[in-house]
């Protein structure tokens, strides 16, 4: 399955684009985490990395579909 990923903050610098397509082995948020970590080891050095699905923080068990809006949420720093 090919998923499209929105990136923000430092995750955009690491993935090298605002919208990135990625071939995913598996179907869950946890699988996506593993693929990302393999392809972009710099993500592992962050304080935290959450994945949002359809604008909600998603747990690793969440199953993804091609129509989902997926986004990487590196450590937030608003305010």
């Amino acid at each position, binding site marked *: 399955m090919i998923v499209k990923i929105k990136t923000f903050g*430092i995750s955009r610098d690491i993935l090298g684009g605002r919208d990135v397509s990625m071939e995913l082995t598996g179907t869950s948020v946890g699988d996506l985490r593993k693929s990302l970590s393999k392809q972009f080891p710099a993500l592992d050095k962050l304080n935290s990395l959450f994945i*949002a699905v359809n604008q909600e923080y998603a747990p690793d068990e969440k199953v993804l579909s091609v129509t989902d809006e997926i986004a990487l949420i*590196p450590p937030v*720093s*608003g305010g």
Partner: protein
Amino acid sequence: MIEITEQPIVVQKVIDAASLKEAGAINTFIGTVRNQTAGKKVVKLEYEAYDAMAIAEIQKIIDRATLQWNLTGWAISHRIGTLFPGEIAVVVAVSTPHRKESFAACQFIIDSLKQTVPIWKKEFFEDGDQWVSAHP
């Protein structure tokens, strides 16, 4: 009112949006851009937001605050884009019947916003830049 804006924030507009006649107190927090971080001069900040999710997450914080305190009104405005030292980055205004709750609710909202709302800032120094809080 929840607003993510590239325009300078008009504090009075945020306060007015939080004001209701039932209120006996309005508490306003104004977050501004500091001119230094750990002794290094900050030239500017760049803020970005995942707008739709940021608004949804702010709404969740408001919903939690509404359950905990008797809010009569509230308004939050967060600026994005390029900001310089001294400029206003965020304004939180809450109104409640009595003052004690207004302090507690306002603090809860800004503290929560900093923890969960998908907004990011990059600090620019004279000799480089960094995404705030990204690394240990």
